[in-house]
Structures are given as C-alpha cells and as structure tokens.
C-alpha cells in the first residue's frame, strides 16, 4: 500500500467510526432536519477534520520519536524552556487553530440564539416527572408529549419545570436547553419538512429518565392550523351511550382527580390534558402505543409499564373499563 492510500484509508476508517455513516433510525445529530441542527452539522464536520489533522500530526511526531529513539549516545542537557519547537508546535499552532475554532463556534452560537424568522407561535413547555406538557399560547390548546409545529416556521418554546431539572432535546432539530426550577428558559424550533422527530429528556431526572420521551410532529402549515383549531376546542359530547357511560366513569373515578378534559368538570392539571387523547399516537410519554389494549393496561396497571410513574392503578369492573375506553377513544 502506498503512503497516500494508507492515509486515505485510515481517514475513511476514522470518519466512518466517528459518525459518517449514522445507523438508520437513530435520531442522529448528523442527520439534521432543521435549521438549528444543520448549523451544528457544519460546525461538527469542520472541527472533525481539524481534529483528524491535529491528531495525525501529533501521532506522526510521536511515531518518529519512537522509531528513531535508539541512539547510542543521548544529550546530557536539554533546553530549559523547550526552545522554538515547543513555542511553535505547542503554543503558536494550537493558539491559531483554537482562535479560529472559537470565532466559528461563537458565530454559530449567535445564530442558534436567534430564530431565522420572528416566531409567530409560542408554546409553553412544562417538564414533569416523567412527561412533557405543551400549552399553545393564545389558543388554549393543551397537549402532552406530542408537540405539533408548522413546517418552515420558527416556533418559540418557553421552558419551565414543575419539579426537578429536565432538558429538552430533539437531536435532529435543535440544541438542547435545560428546564430549571425557578427559571424560564427559551429556545426556538424550526423543521424543514413534515415528519415525526424523536425528542427526549437529556438531564437525569430520576427513575424514569430514559422514558421521558416526546415527539415533535411537524406538519404543513395548513394541516397544523386545523390540528391546532381542533386541539383548542373543547371535547365533544360523547355520541354513543357506551361512551357517555364512560364519561361518568371518568368523572366519578380517580381519573378526574388529576386529568383535565376541557368541556367537562375535570380540570386538574396534575396529569396530561386528555381533551384530545385519541389523536395522540403514544401514551405514557412515548412508552406505549395509543391502542385500546395498551390504554387499558395503562389505566389498570401503570406501574408495570412505567414503574415509579405518579399515575396510580385504577380498579374498575370490566364493563366500566370498556365504557371508559370507549369514551377515551372518542376524544378526538
């Protein structure tokens, strides 16, 4: 192998090892789908290649020192300050590289702090052990764990927490920002194209930290507007008799003590707002699919699906459970 091919081969190995080929399905930082994350991708690769060169140069110095290190006679004294070698390679070169990297990252940092367009929509994101509440300012829409945004528009997020520190992170869209008690943080999101982007809590927040999952669902603006209008509306009266019985089960059992269904007497904000529960794809903060059987499991025995979750088990007769499920599945 010639030296050139060797170098190219090793660079390729290094590049692929460090993320050039992200596995399919992973919410990789290097598979950006939004303005913010794309900036980071650029900065990442710039720093990656600088690092590869720096690493290669230093390793080359080390290799030469080792390979040539078999002198019979060695010097008795050495430069006390290190001389020009250390000044150039240890001070001047790193300072120049670091100054460049610093300026470029500062530029990207400024870019990340201001949205590309003035956001028309502000969403309050409230972290809870272990789920996410989203309140759309100005419309009254409240949802949980599935945050819809319009594509191609900057959206402002206002981040607060109800308990411990959490961190809001959608790797493919935007930088992460912490949710800190007693503090209001803000960030913006912008997705290029419609899609469902996985997000997660990044700051360890206790037992179910790994299961504090959420999704950002980006829709075309028209589709988003109709979603928002529906989400802002109150729950419809149950149509069928089974569902109507389910509503009274909901209001008379422990459900209504924690959950709100707008348009009914249930208005607690301890747990997720369920006004349009049936429109969500997942429940329990991304842990279960929103199907009838999973919903039943979650109501009867939440601790088996998500141990430590605040939701207590509920004892219901099978007829009551069926009616309740009919009701919940009708909350569209």
């Amino acid at each position: 192998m010639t030296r050139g091919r060797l170098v190219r081969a090793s660079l390729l190995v290094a590049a692929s090892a460090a993320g050039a080929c992200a596995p399919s399905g992973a919410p990789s930082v290097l598979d950006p789908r939004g303005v913010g994350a794309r900036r980071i991708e650029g900065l990442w690769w710039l720093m990656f290649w600088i690092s590869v060169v720096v690493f290669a140069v230093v390793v080359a110095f080390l290799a030469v020192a080792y390979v040539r290190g078999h002198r019979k006679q060695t010097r008795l004294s050495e430069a006390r300050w290190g001389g020009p070698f250390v000044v150039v390679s240890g001070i001047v070169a790193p300072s120049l590289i670091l100054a460049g990297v610093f300026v470029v990252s500062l530029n990207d940092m400024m870019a990340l702090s201001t949205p590309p367009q003035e956001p028309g929509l502000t969403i309050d994101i409230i972290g809870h052990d272990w789920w996410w509440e989203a309140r759309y300012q100005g419309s009254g829409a409240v949802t949980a764990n599935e945050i819809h945004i319009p594509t191609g528009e900057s959206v402002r997020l206002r981040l607060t927490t109800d308990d411990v520190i959490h961190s809001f992170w959608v790797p493919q869209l935007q930088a992460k920002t912490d949710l800190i008690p007693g503090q209001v943080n803000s960030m913006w999101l912008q997705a290029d194209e419609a899609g469902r982007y996985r997000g997660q809590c990044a700051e360890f927040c206790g037992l179910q930290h790994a299961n504090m999952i959420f999704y950002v669902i980006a829709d075309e603006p028209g589709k988003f507007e109709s979603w928002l209008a529906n989400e802002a509306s109150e729950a419809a009266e149950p149509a069928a008799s089974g569902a109507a019985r389910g509503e009274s089960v909901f209001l008379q059992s422990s459900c209504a003590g924690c959950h709100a269904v707008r348009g009914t007497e249930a208005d607690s904000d301890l747990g997720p707002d369920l006004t349009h529960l049936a429109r969500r794809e997942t429940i329990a903060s991304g842990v279960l699919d929103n199907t009838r059987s999973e919903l039943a499991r979650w109501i009867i025995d939440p601790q088996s699906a998500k141990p430590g979750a605040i939701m207590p088990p509920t004892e219901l007769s099978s007829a009551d459970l069926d009616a309740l499920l009919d009701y919940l599945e009708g909350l569209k």
Partner: protein
Amino acid sequence: MATLEHSVPRTAGGLLEWFTSVDHKKIGILYLSSALVFFVLSGILALVMRSELAQPGLQLVDRQTYAQLFTMHGTGMMFFFGTPMVIGLANYFVPLHIGAPDVAFPRLNAFAFWLTLAGAVMAFAGFLTATGAAAFGWTAYAPLSGDAYSPGTGADLWIIGVALSGVAGVLAAVNLLATIFGMRAPGMSMLRMSIFNWNIVVTSILIAFSFPALTVALALLWADRNLGSSFFEPAGGGDPVLYQHLFWFFGHPEVYILILPFFGIVTEIIPVFSRKPVFGYKGFVFATLLIGAYSFSVWAHHMFTTGAVDGPFFSATSMLIAVPTGIKFFNWIGTMWGGKIRFQTPMLFCAGFLFMFLMGGITGVFLASPPLDYFVHDTYYVVAHLHYVLFGGSVFAMFAGLYYWIPKMSGRMLSEGLGKLHFVLLLVGMNAAFFPMHQLGIDGMQRRIPDYPASFGYAQENLVSTAGAFLIALAVLVFFINLFVSLRRGPLAGDDPWGGYTLEWATTSPPPHHNFHRLPPIRSARPVFDERRENAQAGPEGGSP
C-alpha cells in the same frame, strides 16, 4: 557528603503497625491499597452497567438499581479511587523526591487517610440500607438530590461520606504543601525539584481551594434535606443553579487534580526511559502553573445548556486551557526525540497514555464550543470524552507509575511479561469500551439510561463497548496476579532498577524508616544521574559501589 542522623522510633509491629503508623510510606501504601480496592469495587459496578446495556431492554437490574450503579461508580472512581490514589502516590514519593525523612505533619497525615477511608465506607454503606445507595448521579444536582425526590438514608450517607473525604483531601493537600515548601534537603531549590513534585504543588493548591466549595455545596444540600432550609429550592427563595456553580467550581479543578499528578508521573518516566533529561523543564513547570490557574476559570462549561452562564467567556477559557496542555505534549515528544528509548512496561503505559490522552484532549475541545456542547452535552459522547481523559489518561499513567515505583516500595520487580500482557489487554479493552461511545452520543443516546430503543441501531456499539469493559476487567486481573506473584517471588529490585534520576533511587528498596542513610549532593533536577556519571568518570576504583 551529608549523613542523616536519626533514631528509629518504636513501632507497634505486625498488623497493628498498619493501623497506628504515622510513617508517610506506610500511609502512602494504605492510600494506594484503599484506592485500588475502590477502583475494583467501582469497576465492578461499571461491569454490571455494561452488562445491562449490552442489549436493549432491562435484563439484569431495575431502574432504581441502575441509578445507584452509575452514581456510585462515578462517586467511587472520583472521590475514593482517583483523589486518594493521587494523595497516596504523593505521600510516598514527595518526601523521597525532596530528600525529606517524612511529611511535615505525620499525625495529620494518618488522620487524613483514616478520614478518607471512613468517608468512602460511609458512602458505599448506602448499599446496605433499605432504600439503597444514593441514586442521583455523582454530581447530585439539586433539586433531584433533595429530600422530596431522593428520600432515604443512602443519599445522606453519600453527602456525609463525600464531604468527609473532601475535608480529608484538604488536610492532605496542606500537609503536602508544608512538606514541599518547608522540608526540602539542602541544595534542593524549587527549580531542582522533580516535575512530579511540581505537579503535586499545583494539585495540592487546587485541592485546597476547590474542595471547600464542594464541602459548602454538600453542607447546604444536607441542610436543605434535613433542616428544612431552601438554599437550592426556588419555592423558598433558593436557586438550583447555585448548586451547579458550587459543584463545578470544585468539579472542574477536580479533573485537573486527577490528571496533573499523572502528567507528573509520565514526565518522570519518559526521560528515564529515553535516557535524556526532560525537554523544557521550566516550560513544563510554567505550563503546569497555567493549567492550575486556568482550571478555576472554566467551570461553567459544564453548564452551557442551563441558559444561565456566559457562553463566550467560558468557551474562551476552556479552549485556552488546551494551550498549556499542548506545551506539555511537545515537551514529552521533545524529551523522547533523539533518545535511547527502552520500551519496558512503565514506558509502554506512558506511550498508551500519550495516544489516549491526546484523543480525550481533542474531543474535549468540541465540548468547549457552546453550540456543539448544546448537542452532545449529557450524551454518551461526554462519557467517551471523560473516559479517554481519566481512564486513557490518568489510569494508564497510574499503571505506568505503579510499574515504575512498586519495585521501590516492595523491593521486588513486577513481571515484564505479565506487564506487557496487561498493557495490551488494557489498550484494546479501553478503546473497544469507550470509542463506540462517541458514535452513540452523536446518534442521540443520552447518558444515565439503563435501556434504549432496539430500533436505533445502538445495540451494536453497546455490545462492543460491553466486550471492551470485560477486557479491561481481564487486564486489571492480570495486573493483580502480577502484583501478587511478584510481591512474593519477583526478582530483587536493588536500589535503582531503572537507572533513575531522582532521589528515591538513591536509597534502598524499600527505603528505611527515615528514608535516607545518605543523600547525594543535589546540584540539578537529576541528582542520582549526576552522581552515577561522576562515579563512572572517576573510574571503577574511585566510584562507590
């Protein structure tokens, strides 16, 4: 030539001697032994974690146990392995390097060790309580670490245990500083001290000024938990970010506390095994002082995502600290350049250190860039980075130091063959365990989770990483076999098995109670080398044996 006169004090003898001794060498060995015990314990916790992570899903432990595992792994490695290992090596070799008979305050020295051990045992005793050990991460961020979210005795034991070991660290640091400033042998000016000693000076200053911030943070946390105060509770006017400032004002200097002494060890070994003096002694000392000073100005780069710190300032200081580190790197290269290198086990571990630490240093510059940190903060990328620095860096250099110095401490050589096997296993294991974590972090896998989705392709990297962790365990096992066999049957080391430069090689192995029967004249940073050369020039008749 000076002859040191001393009377041999009465000692208890036998096993009791180890509990009552105030001899810096015995206390040093106690520190090292206790540090190695907690290295193994914390390592076993890591093996359980890696086993759990080998596949998606929960197989071995539940979530609560997993949280205890990573909390106590980090706590054990940082507070009960790393710092005591540093203090133990300094305890044994600082007096030898400066030609002193002991440390300045021998009783305080013994007290500090037993306090450290008490703290370590107390924190780990959490595992014996009904609710288990602390489970809020080694950083113990408020309010998660408060009584509302972390009730249970394990958390309080953790706070008291870590605080005790922190206070003990300050006592040890003050003792080392007093020893170095007050007890150097005639002729041993500051600029003739070993680089190891210089690094211990800076490390001790870092300990003395940073650990009190930790003590304060833990005292306030304890008060919030047990006395109903609200230092970190916003409901009572407190601020959880204040805890992070206090913690990282300690926490980042702590990283340098865990790396500077090992820079020192590497800088002792590389010249001896290259048959050259250190290249750029003054530059090296200056760079160490700069790193020590800078290390107090970078703490908030751990807090970029809080939105409560000045990104550009802390980014600039964090990048700046790479410059003095770069100086050291080229000092090491310059020392080996044109040398006569012997690749015995201590030098092999130094070579491994140089590659691994270089890698950890470079990935660290990414984290100093706020926008990149916003993305990889709290992911496996950070876990990879910190293990390249603290495992690839500190632990490799520690093994270099142990292979280099155990012959001095025990009088017997370790096996070269087992040493090389240990090195190869550790190098392969370390890279298999930690390199894939870079990729995992970039792919969005966050830290401190016992489980991950099967569909993300994380499983492959995690499996490789777990295999690497078990290779590391095997390597460490080889080390202990080597240690056990060699302490009994290893060839005798003699006074100076490596052709050393510094004063520890001018006395017997192990040294007598008061260290030196006679000291060579000290006219440079390499008194033992100077004397050996003079003897060689004087010819076989003129030289002493």
